[in-house]
């Protein structure tokens, strides 16, 4: 879950990472008031996307009137697919240097990695490898003073800046670990006179850890309603642009099903991984989600392992009996308890196939008819 910049900065401030003086506003008058208190300010759209500056989502103001005008120009506009309803009005910083600092996960090394650069401010992906400082962090050790010395050495920081940087490295790692973050990023980390300040902040929390950090962090949402509903059922759902709804059990097989469908000229309407071991109720609800999207046809691909074919068949039979299925339904069903599953489907007048190829060819034929 991505946090808005102002939320990320609140976590930073709570954990000893200096941020600019600022205020969250939702109407122009609040922006004016903030400018009155702070002085020259920058107004930043709070959306869950990068590249706000180029898209016109960031403006500057030196007076309350200018601030109100700028806020009025941004608030309510569409920016990168999001409606701007919140601004962060912050002190305009004197910028002597821009650094980059982030901690994320090194999948190959199976541990956190700290990435820093003396050349921040731009997208990290655009920085040459030799301008980056990378250091894997041993979770049994964390960041000890020698590591901060090494990072400062590589970043060319010394004196009071190095002291502040050492604290920021340590505190950012603390945020990363304590809030179960996938990414904590400060870009740019600004050198402003004798001070380091986090001029921007990005934090992404691991969705799987919300059970323990949910209370500690504010909540944001960038999914569609359907995706939210699916997630509540423990189902992975991604909306796509075709007309054939797809359900399979397992992320890999679902992706492969979409690929095969496309290979044979079909257009998937969604990605839906009903999960390994989905029971009768979950499968029925998953089918109902698909029916609600009103596709031309539905393709179901079940290779029963932990999922049992009889459970899937029973779920389909229940849905058919209780509310009817008004869309052509093509099912491929093999694996655990296959015979029983096929029998239940047959009893309810639903045909099933043994190979995915046959099922896909059939559903494409129906949809393109």
């Amino acid at each position, binding site marked *: 879950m991505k946090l808005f910049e102002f939320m990320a900065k609140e976590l930073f401030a709570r954990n000893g990472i200096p941020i600019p003086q600022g205020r969250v506003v939702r109407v122009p008058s609040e922006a004016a008031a903030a400018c009155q208190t702070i002085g020259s300010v920058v107004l930043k759209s709070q959306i869950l996307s990068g590249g706000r500056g180029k898209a016109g989502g960031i403006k500057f103001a030196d007076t309350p009137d200018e601030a109100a005008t700028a806020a009025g120009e941004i608030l309510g506009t569409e920016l990168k697919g999001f409606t701007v309803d919140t601004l962060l009005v912050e002190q305009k910083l004197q910028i002597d240097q821009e650094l980059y600092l982030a901690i994320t*996960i090194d999948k190959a090394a199976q541990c956190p990695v700290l990435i820093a650069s003396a050349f921040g401010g731009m997208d990290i992906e655009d920085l040459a490898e030799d301008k980056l400082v990378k250091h894997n962090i041993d979770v049994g050790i964390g960041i000890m003073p020698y590591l901060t010395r090494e990072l400062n050495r590589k970043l060319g920081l010394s004196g009071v800046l190095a002291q502040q940087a050492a604290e920021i490295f340590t505190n950012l790692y603390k945020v990363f670990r304590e809030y179960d973050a996938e990414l904590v990023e400060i870009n740019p980390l600004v050198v402003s006179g004798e001070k380091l300040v986090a001029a921007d902040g990005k934090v992404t929390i691991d969705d799987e850890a919300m059970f323990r950090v949910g209370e500690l962090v504010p909540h944001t949402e960038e999914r569609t309603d359907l995706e939210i509903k699916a997630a509540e059922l423990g189902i992975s759902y991604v909306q796509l642009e075709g007309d054939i709804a797809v359900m399979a059990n*397992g992320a890999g097989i679902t992706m492969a099903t979409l690929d095969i469908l496309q290979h044979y000229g079909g257009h998937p309407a969604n990605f839906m991984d009903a999960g390994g071991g989905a029971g009768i109720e979950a499968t029925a609800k998953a089918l109902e989600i698909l029916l609600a999207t009103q596709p031309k046809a539905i393709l179901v691909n079940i290779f029963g392992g932990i999922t049992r074919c009889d459970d899937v068949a029973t779920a389909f039979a229940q849905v058919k009996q209780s509310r009817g299925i008004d869309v052509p339904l093509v099912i491929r069903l093999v694996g655990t308890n296959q015979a029983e599953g096929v029998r239940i489907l047959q009893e309810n007048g639903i045909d099933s196939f043994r190979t995915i190829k046959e099922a896909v060819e059939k559903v494409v034929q129906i949809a393109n008819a």
Partner: protein
Amino acid sequence: MAIIIDGQTRVLVQGATGNQGSFHLKQMLAYGSNVVAGVSPGKGGQSVEAVPVFDTVFAAVEAQHPNASIIFIPARLAKEAAFEAMEAGIETVVIITEHIPVHDAMDIMHLAKARGTTIIGPNTFGIISPGLCKMGIMPNSIFLPGTTGVLARSGTLSYEIVFNLTAAGIGQSSVVGLGGDRVAGLSFVDILQRFEADEGTTQVVLVGEIGGNAEEEAAEYIKSMRKPVVAYLAGKSAPPGKRMGHAGAIIERGKGTFASKVTALNAAGAQVAALPWEVPNLLAQVSR
């Protein structure tokens, strides 16, 4: 004959009395796995399918000497279960559990490195050495003993591939699921190395997917392999920026695309099947 598990493996089931644990304990027994013990705190003294259940892994180790454990424990407690297995000296730990927080996964891998434990998963279908031992949740019926090693990021898709192999009379030495999470124990390269070294394996099928660069790293290693490798990759039709079920299955900033993986594998001499059921034919071609 096989990698990681074989006829000598003594299997422990953590979470043996739960729904999933007891179901798959039974399935593993039915497959012929030597399941020697189960663990469920508070259920010590009970048994599941005549397999004795203990309160702690230590107690199970003391009494039954398992050397591999399979974990069916809810995500919130899975890290602790893996730690217990490692502290009790279990050498191979298969973590079936999905939705484990990534920081917990990092903690698990950190301890595993210190202890020299082999971790498979989390969020894996497990591992099977057909005819010898199964530690996982895959259907028993689709496997055939043989000499083709299979490694996959994803469960059901690999069943599909194995199903096609078996139908074509191509047996498997071992089939290993890395797991779909961002931080997993064994990597493609780790497993390829074991297949390359295994006398019972003559060729390998790699089942990958979009996202990350695990397939590209595998391709780098495949260049040095003597044994032929055939791949199938899922996610050709996936749009960028969308997480396709698995935490790692996402094309971000133009990285981890289907095309880049195919290019890397082809450059390493590994053919990539366009459709799952084409894998047996490609294998027949490469193994001459």
